[in-house]
């Protein structure tokens, strides 16, 4: 009886390990999109005390996650309403926010990805969380993004805020 339990436990552990290794070595489109989104969050975060060159490099890196014709709609009641059209406008805005030198930690959590049948585009639904040092309450916002596979890379071509309470 004990032998069987041990064998079963060993088999389960092996299967779990194998599955983890397989997914790690050969990630599917959903996993790649999740990784891209966490990379965006990491790139958008900053400690605030970066030099000019690292700041510029971050802004440059941030633009690599979006298509040139990206459309972003931000609507946070009582805080901000803004439309961003194209990568140039996004770059300007990102550079301007970086120049303020304020530290920020961005997280994208509860990400759910829906792939299109052709597997060349996908929709992502998530919660964005921005935390500023010294402020106890983070800003949270429900977000939606549409991604397109361009030259083998998943890029955001549309993003918008979602009103959780209407």
């Amino acid at each position: 009886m004990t032998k069987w339990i041990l064998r079963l436990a060993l088999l389960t552990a092996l299967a779990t390990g194998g599955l983890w290794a397989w997914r790690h070595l050969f990630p599917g489109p959903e996993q790649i999109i999740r990784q891209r989104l966490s990379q965006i969050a990491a790139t958008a975060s900053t400690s605030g005390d970066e030099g000019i060159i690292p700041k510029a490099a971050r802004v440059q890196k941030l633009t690599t996650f979006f298509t040139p014709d990206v459309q972003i709609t931000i609507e946070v009641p009582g805080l901000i309403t803004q439309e961003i059209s194209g990568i140039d406008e996004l770059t300007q805005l990102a550079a301007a926010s970086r120049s303020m030198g304020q530290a920020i930690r961005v997280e994208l959590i509860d990400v759910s990805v829906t792939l299109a049948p052709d597997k060349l585009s996908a929709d992502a639904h998530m919660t964005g969380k921005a935390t500023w040092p010294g402020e106890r309450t983070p800003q949270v916002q429900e977000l939606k993004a549409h991604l397109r596979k361009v030259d083998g890379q998943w890029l955001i071509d549309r993003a918008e805020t979602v009103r959780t309470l209407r």
Partner: protein
Amino acid sequence: MTIAGWILPALELGSPCSYDIMPVPEVQRPASGWVKRVLIGRDPKRTLARVVIWVAVCLFVAKFVLLPIRVQGISMMPTYQEGRVNFVNRLAYVFHEPKRGDPVAIKLAGEHVMYLKRIIALPGETLEFRRGRVFINGKLLNEAYVRYPCAWDHPPETIGPGEYYVVGDNRTMDFTEHYQGKAWRSQIVGKPLL
């Protein structure tokens, strides 16, 4: 049980002469056994099984019954103070629908971050704010939980089927700055336990 096992031999050595020759290592030895017994029990296999079962039960309860949360923000003050730990009872609305006056947790894209608000209007009702006072279908709503009054004005708004109007208890800020509105029934995760 275990205490008697290592105290009684010492009491038996009551005479002064026998006290002098009391074997010290023998008295000290059971102490480590006692600690071991407290930590892992008499039967380590059974203790391990108990630990596994308890961890599984706790994980199940935390995931499917009582979701642990920490309150952030001032929107529900003074009812819910910032930084307090609470639990969302996910089974609160299994047998009945949410009621007016219920504080509820509302999910965003998922359940790692949720809004904590209070239901003030139910599906099919008409809600209106007049100088900070809430009117439901034209009748004044008594809100004992609102300690910080406001002067909000909001025209009559009819709540659709399957929707609930939610708002925080702290209404000291401007109407547009206070995050409130209609939430779908499917967005309501449960009710805070405390």
